[in-house]
């Protein structure tokens, strides 16, 4: 384990091991009221009538709010396409239509949980049923329109046209075609959504909640409530995991709405809402289900000549961040390779399923699954080692992407691939780790002839920061206190601490930037009343962006300190190099300003009789530029690998007619301690990013990306069969092996 001086324990660890850290659902404000959100339970229906009188008569019920109570009944991170409350009496067009089983239709505020639940059950709603569309290809026919304002269910289409496809195919000696099916994935953070709303001492509508970007939440609440920004305050207490799943609104707006309307009625009491696990699994977005149809051509000596692909991504009922996820997917579907000729069409499609949205990797895992499988199949067909084939085509400094602009400097893919291959002993015939007993097959090991072993490889890259022209910046405030010397540094920053360790890393960077010991730094974080706009903790961006903003603010503060200002206070904003959106015809653009690079190799054992797979060893090589806190970096790698392991092998969200069928952790399985790979080995490489703070790149998403295709490659190595679909559930493995027997 990493034990150097920069691997300091987390700043929030003491509170978390003593039970004193407060998460949103732990807040017990004096005299609080209980709020409850009623879901529509209608994947597609028009509300005809709603009667809340019986519910209002339930003893203990204080208020019930419906669509008519929402000042501006809309929200959405990239487009305001979702009503805060679906229902009648709202000016927002089509807000009487429920497109998702978990559209919110009422907020009940009561003295007790029981009274709120009883009232919810007494709200009478009549619905006119509409045709439910869940299949992407059915939706694309536009026979039933769900995106009523746009008139089409194609929420977004991107295309890339590079080079001369006819020439590319003509040059190819071999062609590989593949169709890949990617499942939904549930974030399954351990803390279900919860929050508390109140009017603070300055009269602001205040919401304490878990999110990923305080200022975005503030803007969304202010917009829906028709309030000026400064009348809304967002505070993040301890947050029990996020992984992208808290990027969109959960309870922010409804809590704000409830306390604002209660205040107007002369009731100034806090309102608390806590979701159950099933509310959480049903009520927030997922990693997108997707289908990729793709074709790759290459010469006999292993040069890729052309790639065509069609990407279909199920966006579900509302946009959330789907268009951005699609953009990233679209770029990643050709992998980290030089592709001279490319013809790519990608679609985000609206259906009545649960919305798709941000989840660690943000379209990258789906893209990588298609690209890396294609690469591994090409290697097999050409009889070229998969590592060697990658190195022949890999992106390097100066390489042009499919969007026809060069990679940012210091591309280290070759180094991470070689480091990973070396560590696992790729060029040796011998697998390095012997198998142990299957934990999953509790007391079994079936006959030894049924055990097959294999090894697989994959690599990826992941953008750092917002892409494709999205406004990108980060604020930091540094205060230097003392007289002759700097006795105390205060860092005020918006960055959310969702478990990844941002507050610890930021504190360390502030100490380094100012040149004091970390013990002299105090932090004041994640409160819109005191910290600026950090942007979200997503896109592997916070260390990079915050580090640069801290660096800049510290420089400025030190300048003021030198000029005898006491305290010396600097409030600075960092702007990274600009990016550009896809050209609508050709896709030409400057997509990103920074990337991280990763390669993974997997050794596994499969029991071909039971279909159970045990991952014996994962080697994960990551170029992180500079590890600010190596222990936290390793924690991110291990966590990402195990989350990707769940995605590849067991996580299986079930939907039927737009309804999630398995909203429990006993039915939607995530890896437990006995399911994890036997050995996870992290290699941290530090090829500095020329514009990263101290050279740092973002890193917390990228270890997720190559794991599923590396597992599929290892399974192929073991069995001779390619699997084009995950999760690799035991029964599906057995069925597929039988087909090929």
């Amino acid at each position: 384990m990493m034990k150097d001086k920069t691997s300091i324990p987390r700043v929030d660890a003491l509170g978390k091991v003593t039970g004193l850290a407060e998460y949103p659902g732990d807040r017990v404000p004096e005299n609080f009221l209980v709020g409850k959100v009623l879901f529509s339970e209608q994947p597609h229906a028009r509300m005809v009538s709603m009667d809340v009188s019986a519910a209002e008569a339930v003893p203990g019920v204080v208020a019930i709010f419906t669509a008519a109570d929402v000042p501006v009944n809309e929200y959405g991170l990239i487009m305001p396409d979702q009503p805060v409350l679906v229902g009648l009496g709202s000016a927002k067009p089509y807000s009487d239509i429920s497109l998702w089983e978990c559209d919110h239709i009422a907020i009940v505020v009561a003295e007790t949980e029981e009274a709120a639940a009883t009232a919810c059950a007494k709200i009478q709603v009549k619905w006119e049923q509409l045709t439910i569309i869940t299949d992407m290809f059915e939706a694309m026919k536009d026979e039933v329109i769900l995106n009523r304002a746009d008139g089409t269910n194609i929420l977004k289409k991107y295309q890339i046209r590079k080079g001369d496809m006819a020439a590319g195919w003509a040059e190819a000696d071999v062609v590989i075609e593949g169709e890949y099916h990617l499942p939904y994935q549930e974030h399954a953070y351990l803390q279900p959504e919860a929050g508390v709303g109140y009017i603070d001492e300055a009269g602001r509508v205040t919401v304490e909640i878990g999110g990923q970007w305080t200022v975005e939440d503030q803007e969304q609440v202010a917009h829906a409530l028709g309030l000026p920004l400064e009348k809304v305050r967002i505070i993040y207490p301890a947050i029990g995991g996020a992984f992208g799943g808290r990027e969109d609104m959960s309870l922010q707006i409804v809590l704000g709405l409830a306390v604002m309307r209660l205040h107007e009625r002369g009731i100034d009491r806090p309102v608390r809402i806590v979701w159950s696990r099933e509310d959480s699994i049903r009520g927030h977005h997922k990693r997108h289900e997707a289908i990729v149809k793709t074709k790759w051509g290459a010469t006999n000596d292993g040069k890729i000549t052309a790639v065509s692909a069609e990407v279909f991504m199920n966006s579900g009922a509302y946009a959330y961040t789907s268009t951005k996820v699609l953009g990233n997917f679209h770029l990643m579907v050709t992998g980290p390779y030089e592709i001279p000729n490319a013809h790519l069409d990608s679609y985000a499609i609206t259906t009545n399923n649960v919305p798709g949205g941000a989840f660690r990797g943000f379209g990258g895992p789906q893209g990588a699954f298609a690209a890396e499988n294609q690469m591994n199949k090409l290697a097999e067909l050409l009889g070229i080692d998969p590592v060697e084939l990658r190195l022949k085509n890999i992106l390097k400094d100066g390489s042009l992407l499919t969007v026809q602009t060069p990679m940012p400097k210091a591309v280290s893919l070759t180094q991470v691939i070689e480091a990973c291959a070396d560590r696992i002993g790729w060029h040796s015939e011998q697998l390095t780790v012997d198998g142990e007993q299957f934990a999953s097959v509790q007391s079994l090991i079936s006959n030894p002839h049924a055990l097959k072993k294999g090894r697989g490889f994959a690599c990826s890259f992941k953008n750092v920061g917002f892409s494709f022209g999205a406004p990108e910046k980060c604020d930091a405030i540094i205060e230097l206190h003392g007289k002759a010397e700097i006795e105390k540094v205060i860092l005020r920053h918006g960055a959310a601490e969702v478990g990844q360790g941002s507050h610890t890393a930021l504190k360390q960077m502030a100490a380094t930037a100012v040149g004091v010991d970390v013990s002299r730094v105090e932090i004041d974080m994640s409160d819109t009343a005191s910290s600026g706009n950090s942007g979200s903790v997503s896109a592997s961006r916070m260390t990079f962006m915050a580090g640069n903003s801290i660096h800049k603010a510290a420089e400025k503060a030190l300048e003021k300190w030198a000029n005898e200002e006491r305290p010396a206070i600097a409030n600075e904003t960092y702007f990274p190099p600009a990016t550009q959106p896809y050209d609508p015809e050709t896709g030409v653009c400057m997509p990103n300003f920074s990337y991280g690079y990763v390669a993974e190799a997997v050794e596994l054992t499969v029991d071909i009789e039971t279909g159970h797979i045990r991952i014996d060893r994962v080697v994960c090589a990551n170029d992180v530029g500079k590890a600010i806190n190596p222990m936290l970096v390793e924690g991110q790698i291990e966590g990402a690998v195990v989350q990707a392991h769940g995605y590849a092998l067991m996580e299986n969200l079930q939907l039927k007619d737009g309804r999630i069928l398995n909203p429990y952790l006993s039915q939607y399985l995530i890896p437990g301690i006995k399911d994890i790979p036997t050995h996870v080995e992290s290699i941290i490489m530090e090829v500095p990013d020329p514009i990263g703070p101290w050279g740092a790149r973002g890193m917390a998403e990228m270890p997720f990306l190559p794991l599923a295709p590396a597992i599929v490659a290892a399974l192929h190595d073991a069995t001779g069969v390619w699997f084009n679909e995950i999760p690799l559930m035991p029964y599906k493995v057995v069925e597929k092996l039988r087909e090929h027997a």
Partner: protein
Amino acid sequence: MHEPSPGLPEFDYVKPRSLLEASQFLAQHEGKARPFLGGTDTFVRMRDGAWSDSYLVDVKQFEGMGEISFDPDNGLRIGAAVNMNKVIASPEVNAHYPLLAEAARTVASYQLRSRATIVGNLCNGSPAGDTTGACIVMGSVLEVNGVNGRFHLPLTHFFKGPGKTALNPGDIVTAITFPILPVGSNGRYLKLGRNALGDLAIVGVTAFAYPDANQPSGFTFRLALASVAPTPLVPVEAEAILTNQPITPDTIDQAANAAMNACTPISDTRGSARYRKQMVRNLTRQAVTDVWNVVRSA
């Protein structure tokens, strides 16, 4: 409609002072009252609305219900309220009935087994119970207290359908007993879950055997299958194959096939019916082979 409340529905907790009082209360409130032990299944089903009893009757506190006792003449008695961790840790169980400990270890997690009981698991009438097979093949008998007093109920007559048992209103199982096992016996429980976190069995196979000079094969074999039929299943044909002819790899294959053919599993998200049947064959072959290798050298 989805029930948004994360808590348990309202009910009255009843803690009778005697078994008789408990049985009478349960009989008088037929359909509205339910006995419970560890509650690990009961509370989940109450919460999900599958059960909606007005009274939950705690039956853990009566004399003898919290103890394990072994007597070399009469065998093992496990009080109904004994939790599974206690069974797993019991020196008597490990010395004389290791199959039971082996099966119990596969149930859920340590903290769940601090509350879960073998008797509670049986009384739920689930076809997926991990310890049920061990109880069946080792010939266990339930000790029951009903309104008319105490009686014994062999497990062979216990399971009537999914969630249905031979118990009548007012019947409270107070213990499970196991006879002294034949000399040279051995058993095995093989469970296939989707993962290692105490998942319900996709398929579970219990095999048990002992030397028996009266049988053509020289051995008596007992088998029980979990999660492959509406109730725990004893594949009698497979047992007969192993008892009636000399045991060879081929006989074991035949028995495994017979076990497979005896099943009527369903398809669900955890595994298709076809997969389950094949797994029954594979696991039966493995479990029987393992047991056979021990008993024949004993």
